[in-house]
């Protein structure tokens, strides 16, 4: 059967054209093929399963690794007018969960976390409805060669069999060949269609600046901020520094800056995101917690005050710039001491020996419904990992041994990934070419004119066009109330 995909695109998403790669993925999905798609961040991955949802009979089941990401995606779909969407995760109360399970067939899109798929009750409920597509989002999490390996993704191949073998769509923004091979093998994909787009974003210039010390770094950052055009994001590894710089930038009246990190209460995070989206603020000082689900098209710069932990994260973070296709710039500020700091950070991603011990002591006394939530003192990723290994182990000693071995192995892998990034920072050849080599992509002939600091770029291309800054007016509640209710004011003025 042939569908007019453009018409459906217009009707449900109000776009007129597909982005690169989307149509190929959708075509493959609609012909019931297993599909592996690598589409860079910001190119509309979710559309690849949302649009088929309006054509295929039955439900689209989407596995997503992070609770916060899942909530964002659900809100985004609801905002677009799709009400038949639900997230099955530990945010649901016992009652809510049962209600959803009872009425499961009324949902067209079901987002689910991997650990939920381990519950027999959930599998039974899913078996009672028709799943027409099984989507694995962030599929690189399945591979131990990926920078973000989640062991609880490993069981997804078997889950698929239990759900009477729906076709799979494995989506990722970043996966090298060995990761892609792992995805195909573990999910048991059958002759999958592979749609692999380039990781390259030609409209983003890449700059790395090496400095000797913190003072020099701070000075350089201020220099850049005074010169270049916003809006933009500055990434920090530390929440405290993100806070500090937001205040500093605001007080110097360079940008309307705000900080964003996991410590902010949720309602403030929502507001800050929205203020950024609607250009009330134009600079975010963030930790890596910022970005997922942020769909802002006109971000002009991404600066890394601290380097990320691997090339893949770097690419995802700079990929938030220039989604409108306009010229944008990515700047990484690096000093030798950062390396030690990143090494420590890297260690904190995995559970420490102390945490493994504490977990083994408390786990037996934890109720199963609390177990689904994250206990204080652990990160979400750590908590899932510990639970995964605990359930697989025969005894407490067995668990401690397995867990420690795993942590050691992952640590050395992550360390190698960090070294790879460091090598790239110290490279003396074109940075873009170097990235493409790492991803085993063909190097193309006509590189963008603003390529990287090694090929040479003109910073003037990115300088501020608009030096007029917002000034803080006196607070006036009547004025503000008028502004909020302005839909009515407009009408009156017209009359």
């Amino acid at each position, binding site marked *: 059967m042939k569908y007019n995909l453009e018409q459906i695109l217009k009707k449900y998403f109000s776009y007129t054209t597909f982005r690169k790669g989307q149509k190929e993925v959708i075509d493959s999905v609609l012909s019931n093929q297993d599909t592996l798609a690598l589409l860079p961040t910001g190119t509309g991955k979710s559309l690849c399963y949302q649009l088929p949802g309006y054509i295929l009979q039955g439900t689209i089941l989407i596995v997503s690794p992070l609770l916060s990401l899942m909530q964002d995606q659900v809100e985004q779909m609801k905002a677009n007018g799709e009400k038949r969407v639900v997230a099955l995760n530990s945010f649901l109360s016992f009652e809510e969960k049962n209600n959803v399970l009872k009425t499961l067939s009324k949902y067209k899109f079901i987002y689910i976390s991997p650990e939920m798929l381990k519950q027999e009750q959930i599998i039974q409920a899913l078996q009672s409805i028709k799943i027409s597509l099984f989507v694995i989002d962030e599929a690189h999490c399945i591979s131990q060669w990926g920078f973000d390996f989640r062991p609880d993704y490993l069981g997804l191949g078997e889950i698929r069999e239990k759900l009477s073998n729906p076709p799979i769509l494995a989506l990722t923004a970043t996966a090298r060949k060995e990761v892609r091979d792992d995805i195909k093998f573990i999910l048991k994909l059958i002759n999958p269609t592979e749609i692999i787009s380039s990781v390259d974003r030609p409209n983003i210039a890449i700059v790395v600046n090496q400095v000797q010390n913190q003072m020099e770094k701070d000075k350089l950052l201020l220099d850049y901020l005074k010169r270049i055009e916003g809006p933009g994001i500055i990434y920090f590894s530390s929440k405290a520094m993100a806070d500090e710089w937001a205040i500093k930038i605001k007080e110097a009246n360079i940008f309307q800056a705000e900080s964003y990190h996991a410590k902010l209460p949720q309602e403030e995070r929502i507001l800050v995101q929205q203020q950024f989206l609607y250009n009330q603020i134009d600079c975010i000082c963030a930790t890596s917690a910022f970005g997922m689900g942020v769909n802002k098209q006109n971000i002009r710069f991404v600066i890394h005050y601290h380097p990320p932990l691997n090339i893949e994260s770097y690419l995802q973070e700079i990929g938030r710039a220039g989604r409108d296709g306009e010229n944008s710039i990515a700047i990484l500020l690096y000093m030798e001491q950062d390396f030690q700091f990143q090494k420590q950070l890297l260690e904190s991603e995995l559970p420490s020996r102390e945490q493994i011990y504490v977990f083994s002591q408390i786990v037996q006394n934890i109720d199963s419904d609390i177990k689904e939530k994250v206990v204080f003192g652990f990160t979400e990723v750590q908590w899932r990992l510990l639970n995964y290994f605990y359930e697989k182990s025969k005894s407490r000693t067995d668990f401690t041994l397995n867990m420690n071995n795993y942590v050691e192995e992952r640590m050395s892998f992550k360390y190698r990934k960090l070294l790879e990034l460091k090598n790239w920072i110290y490279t003396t050849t074109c940075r873009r070419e170097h990235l493409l080599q790492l991803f085993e992509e063909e190097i193309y002939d006509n590189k963008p004119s603003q390529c990287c600091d090694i090929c040479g770029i003109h910073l003037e291309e990115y300088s501020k066009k608009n030096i007029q800054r917002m000034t803080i007016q006196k607070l006036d509640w009547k004025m503000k109330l008028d502004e909020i209710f*302005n839909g009515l004011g407009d009408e009156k003025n017209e009359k």
Partner: protein
Amino acid sequence: MDFLKILILYGAERLTDERSISAIYSIIVGKKSSQTIQDVSWFRLKKWYHCFPNLSKATFDESVSFLIKNGFIFINEKTVSITPSGKKALQENLKNYPPLNHLNGYEYFNTDEKFWCRLNLIVQSLSYLVHNDSSFYPVERKMEIQYWVKKWLNEKRKVFEKDTLFQMVREELFQIFSKMEKSNLQPSLVVYRLSGYKSPGLTSNQLSQALKIEEVFYQLSFLDHIHYMLKTIWSERENYPLLHTLFEYRNVLLTSSSEQTYELIKKGYSIDEIVKIRRLKRSTIEDHVVEIVLKDPTFSIDPFVSLELQNKLVNLISNVSYRKLSKLKEDVKEADYFAIRLVLSKYS
């Protein structure tokens, strides 16, 4: 010293030598135990009950260590005590802050957050509706709030056009904010937090900076303003046909077991009879009666304590600052503990 530290110091003064430091924490976060509910009544701290529901123990402990280190309070085995220099610091610092006359956590702890979240989401939803734009990120993510607002909007839109509804909300808000301003409050503290069409509200941090006040105190002032709104809207609810439907107001909130005891008392049973009927210990039933006295100001304790004894005890508690039952009993030997608790609950 930020206002949280001042608040802890204030609590320490009221509870000095009587309660532990953690009693102050329980009051601030609004712990729902009968001990805490009794404490706020007996020590006249009702206003501060539940004023920072999300305060972490770590932040609290940090402030406490600061107060100890500066010699403002010290901690005995079981109780907290304020020092003379602590008292002085408290008086000096309190002067720098405007009073929070409307704050009443004990009365509104169940209502304030819900009311604000619903109001905020209703204003945002309506502002998008009148722009014929139904795709927006809700400022409130809690499912419970979203469902409630959706239901509310559906019901109201059966009766009113969306523009009319929006206009009505605006007029009611304008009315309450104007009244607020006349009562020497600042409507901006609330208005700038609201989100409208493509114009998200300010965070508490941003607004406190714009107002040049510390964030902790801003948050309490915000609550003070919200409580003012709740009180005013409810007492003049005929003037706020929409806003007064955003919250359910229940004065008496008893635990279900106390509720049963209350029903039996209303039917005229004595405490001894209730003990037999409910097969509970006498002390449990007494706890229920104390809870009823605390929550229902119209409940009379005359059947349980003679007027003469009530007078004696009231005289005593208005002249001494301590609230330790054993100490009070030494002064009025003929009173039993139950009588003292009832009088304390009724008259403090």
